[in-house]
């Protein structure tokens, strides 16, 4: 439930503390948050609370800063929706454009990363994607898995993978050393003590197919690339026979640095199949307030999560 910052008669849950903090800074956001939480299952609400507690650890006393970032992200998405609905396209199509305007701008990147972190607990489509990851993909990982994540960001996906993998290995790649430093800091704050290898590597420059992984995660990365099909082909080569991949690719989801527009969940499934993976499970989560049917009709954003498997003996 949403509480005001003065309703402190009983201890607040982590999620209540988080939303209370957001609303103290941005009271106009109440209607959206009420929409988000109105139809959450008890299980989803419990996960949101867990994620909120992790966010508090990552905030390390600077929750105001994260809330500012979250507000920036929300306002940015409205601007990008306007471009999307006027033109039918995302604003940018070339990586070099977003690299120059976004990725090389520390102030924007700090706001962006902080905002994305909060959205994991607040946005329904992000929460449900994480729920699917925990409930459907993590069980497919053995304790001895050789695991890889592309673009680990705030480290929450690594956090849940690390809880499963005792004897295997966990690696993560990113093209940005700044992002990797941020991930390392997040992993430390989350208390992940087991080794996690963070490497500055570009997927498109990978030619070492001697390395193969039992489980690969690429969440909300492919839409930032000019050629996601090529990326998936490379990831297929990097997947061990019988191994699994977790892909989260939002469709009709304008954002400042989204480059590749897919218009339906089926486009995502086709992309994954086209790379040679067998589809094992999917979940399509529309933005808050929309059923999947209504989101399709309205071209509203849908987070499309696909679990694929590489065929055995390939």
């Amino acid at each position, binding site marked *: 439930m949403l509480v005001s910052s003065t309703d402190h008669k009983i201890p607040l849950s982590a999620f209540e503390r988080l939303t209370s903090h957001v609303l103290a800074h941005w009271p106009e956001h109440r209607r959206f948050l009420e929409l988000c939480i109105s139809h959450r299952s008890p299980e989803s609400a419990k996960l949101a609370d867990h994620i909120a507690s992790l966010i508090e650890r990552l905030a390390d006393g600077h929750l105001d800063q994260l809330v500012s970032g979250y507000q920036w992200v929300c306002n940015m998405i*409205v601007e990008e929706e*306007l471009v999307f609905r006027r033109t039918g396209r995302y604003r940018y199509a070339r990586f070099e454009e977003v690299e120059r305007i976004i990725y090389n701008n520390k102030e924007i990147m700090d706001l962006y990363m902080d905002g994305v972190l909060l959205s994991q607990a607040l946005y329904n489509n992000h929460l449900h994607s994480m729920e699917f990851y925990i409930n459907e993909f993590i069980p497919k990982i053995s304790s001895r898995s050789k695991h890889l994540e592309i673009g680990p960001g705030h480290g929450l996906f690594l956090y849940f993978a690390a809880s499963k993998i005792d004897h295997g290995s966990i690696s993560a790649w990113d093209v940005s050393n700044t992002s990797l430093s941020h991930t390392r800091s997040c992993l430390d704050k989350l208390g992940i003590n087991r080794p996690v290898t963070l490497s500055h590597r570009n997927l498109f420059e990978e030619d070492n197919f001697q390395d193969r992984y039992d489980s690969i995660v690429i969440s909300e990365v492919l839409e930032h690339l000019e050629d996601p099909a090529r990326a998936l082909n490379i990831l297929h080569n990097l997947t061990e026979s019988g191994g699994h991949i977790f892909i989260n690719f939002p469709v009709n989801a304008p954002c400042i640095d989204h480059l590749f527009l897919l218009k339906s969940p089926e486009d995502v499934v086709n992309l994954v199949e086209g790379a040679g993976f067998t589809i094992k499970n999917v979940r399509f989560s529309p933005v808050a307030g929309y059923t999947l049917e209504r989101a399709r009709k309205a071209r509203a954003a849908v987070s499309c999560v696909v679990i694929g498997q590489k065929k055995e003996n390939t």
Partner: protein
Amino acid sequence: MLFQKLQDIFSDIFDETPLTLRPDLTAPEVLGWDSINHINLVVAIEEAFSITLDSQEIRSMANVGDLVDILKRHGVSIEWPSDSLAH
């Protein structure tokens, strides 16, 4: 008539909701008038009247009356029917 044109746009965007425009009509009163449909509404109005609104104008409109005032500033003068002003 420009008012009817605006009414038709609203009816098209919120096609499951019977709707009569009045100046103090706000988004919470209209089923489906969320942030996405607000932008769809703005884009449809821009196309219908050949204007472009800026972000500040889009965010600032608290009700349909504000929208009509903004349209007037863009040279689109919409006169309210007398019965819509009696609410």
